[in-house]
């Protein structure tokens, strides 16, 4: 009995002492996917949600092929700081947001006009460095998806560049196309097709089981250091629409202050990667598992 208690206590202590994600020794991998590329999604109906509701998007729109990367987000932070679109406020960056209409529903929190956090600079998981003047992506993480921005931070990026966050419908159509598939590439998921919990991908091995983001477009059929990937592109050629990081979407709904995310992340079981799966959090929430991409047009 005594031995069992000691063993159990020791296991918990060990859990606390186990290795943290490696932040500095990440190899740079070129996926061959252009992180500046966009694709056009044509107007028309598609099947939305698990129960396949016919939904019409009656305009063409363009969407980023990959999520915004750390390098791209660092560039935005530098440019937006210089332009005064965002500003430093202690250990965080903030931006102005004009606020949402408040309806007083149960659990609804007011989002008033004012400065709201873009990013928390003291988070240990941040893949950017900041020397007080300039942001840079940490070595090896340049082409990994940017994370740890709030919804305001994602929205600010798109707006600063003249774009916007996708609606949930736009995101889902871009992921699924016009048929009823569950994942961007079809109805089956293989471990080397996306980055999810226990997918045993190359970066789980690099981080000794802890797991990390993978470079955007990583799962494209190429082989990296002997690790063969399957092509995880969506019907429109988008990458990382399942796994790696959740992606903020732009819809603001009546009666809730939450903002919605799609796609599932490296920390989720594969069923969370199905194209219709939703997640949400307060717009001030930032996570190492959440990124975004932008759309234009419509």
């Amino acid at each position: 009995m005594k031995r069992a208690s000691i063993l159990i206590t020791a296991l918990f202590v060990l859990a606390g002492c186990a290795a943290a994600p490696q932040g500095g020794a990440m190899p740079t991998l070129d996926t061959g996917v252009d992180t500046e590329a966009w694709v056009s999604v044509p107007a028309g109906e598609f099947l939305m949600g698990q129960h396949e509701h016919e939904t019409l998007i009656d305009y063409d729109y363009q969407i980023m092929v990959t999520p915004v990367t750390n390098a791209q987000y660092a560039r935005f932070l530098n440019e937006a700081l210089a332009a005064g679109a965002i500003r430093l406020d202690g250990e965080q960056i903030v931006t102005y947001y004009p606020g949402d209409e408040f309806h007083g529903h149960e659990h609804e929190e007011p989002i008033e006009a004012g400065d709201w956090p873009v990013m928390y600079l003291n988070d240990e998981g941040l893949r950017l460095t900041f020397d007080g003047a300039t942001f840079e992506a940490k070595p090896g993480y340049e082409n990994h998806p940017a994370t740890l921005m709030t919804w305001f931070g994602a929205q600010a990026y798109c707006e600063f560049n003249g774009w916007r966050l996708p609606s949930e419908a736009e995101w889902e159509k871009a992921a699924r196309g016009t048929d009823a598939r569950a994942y961007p590439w079809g109805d089956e998921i293989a471990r080397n097709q996306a980055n999810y919990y226990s997918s045993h991908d190359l970066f789980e091995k690099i981080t000794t089981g802890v797991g990390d983001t993978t470079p955007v477009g990583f799962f494209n059929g190429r082989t990296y250091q002997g690790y063969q990937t399957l092509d995880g592109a969506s019907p429109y050629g988008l990458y990382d629409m399942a796994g790696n990081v959740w992606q903020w979407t732009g819809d603001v709904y009546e009666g809730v202050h939450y903002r919605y995310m799609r796609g599932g992340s490296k920390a989720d079981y594969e069923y969370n990667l199905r194209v219709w799966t939703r997640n949400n959090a307060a717009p001030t929430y930032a996570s190492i598992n959440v990124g975004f991409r932008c759309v234009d047009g419509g």
Partner: protein
Amino acid sequence: MQSIVQRFNYLFRSTKGLVLVSIALIALVTAVWGTISGPMAEWGVRDVSVRLLGMQLNPAEREGRIIMLYHTIALAVVAIETYLITEHIPMKQHQQVTINGTITVGYILAMVFGLSFAYFGHNWAFHGLFLFGMSLTFFAGILLAAALWPWKKEYHVQDREYSHWGKIDLERTAFFVMAVATLGSALFGAVTGSYWGNGHETFLAEDLIREPVKTALQLSIIGHLHIMLTLIAVALALLIGRWYDFKGVLHKIAMPLMIVGTIVITLGVWAVVPFEPIAHIIIYVGSVFILLSALMLVIFGFRKLIREGLAETGQRGFVPALGALLRDPLRFGTLWQMVFMNFTVSGIGIFVAVKLDEIFRVWPARDERIILTGHWHVLSGIIATIILLYYADIAGLKGRARRWFGWIVILFSDLAFASVTVFEMKRLFVSEANQQPVVNWTMALVDLGLGVVLVALAGLMIWRLVDLFEKRGRWAAELAETGFPADDAPQAQVQPAREGTK
């Protein structure tokens, strides 16, 4: 041929046999279906199972499959409780036989054809048989409620040490109220299910959190699943009370509390559909009554264990008292698990409710979902372990095997449940950037704990399976208790009827 008939009689006509069949079927389903999720999926076992068994796992139908799986297991648990109720609560023999027969056919039909429909292609005849099985189970519930009717003269209380109201036996009334509440609550699920494909879309309740508007059908299902699990727990607490021969002052306080609590919490859950904003308050009130009633049982049971243990050893003092409390893990464990539930289920539930907007609704919905699913999986697991400990006792586990089995189930299940709780709450004490090691360790401990409990269960099942091949096995003695004597039944091995049985 005669030997097969005798074994059939044991398995399907004796209470102990029926409970054994139900536990064995749940164990089988758990063993097979456990390979397609969690660590087994991570280790690649799922792929082997799916290929070997020919399962068809369309990703879009995952929620529907899970709902049918939950129902098949839940119905088997309801059947176990029903067998124990018909055994221990006085009723006419023909009622016992009819109820047991109906629910046995019902839950087995639902289990076999429900799982066949959900996991092995959609043969709609199987879906119909699944519904027929559920209907039979419901019908058995109506028969049970009728048999439990507490106002019949022959069921008036005889011993005034037991809770009563005039001549009415309040323990019997508590069983009756639970049965009626279960029937009404089952209808909430059944009515919504009847709209399936005709305005109702399959969903898991945990996926609806944070939705500002929920339909009446969705609210009905949310209420249904919560109250059904609650009522299973109420029935089990009443049965454990019966097992302990719960009586005296505490019994007289506990039974009215349980009756009122069951009525209030059931009405509260039903009120979720029309009056959601106030329903939670009603539910909280009902929960307090039920938890207080269970507390009375725990106090009574622990005192009884200590009193009996000390009387046997003739010692006095704290350490001998503690030894007396812990000397029989099967008896102690059933009550301890109820206590432990407060740390891993009730306590967590209250904390989350109090800090919901401040902490938990800042987190992503998927993390809140983990808390919810962890919460009720732990509650289900605790109920399962209590049933296992109880069954191990009535199955005649004795000596060292009894102690080993009991302590393994208690310690390893509690290790798993505690680890689930740490996993649910990890964001409170470790940053997200550093949480993966905690995830890995807690998941490993959950797997270890549940794995060891399942091995212990497998051991128990194998013991009873081997016994069935013996001519003078325990099964024959247990069959003899029921009035269907087997040839050469070793009567000396028959356990004396426990206090509180018919």
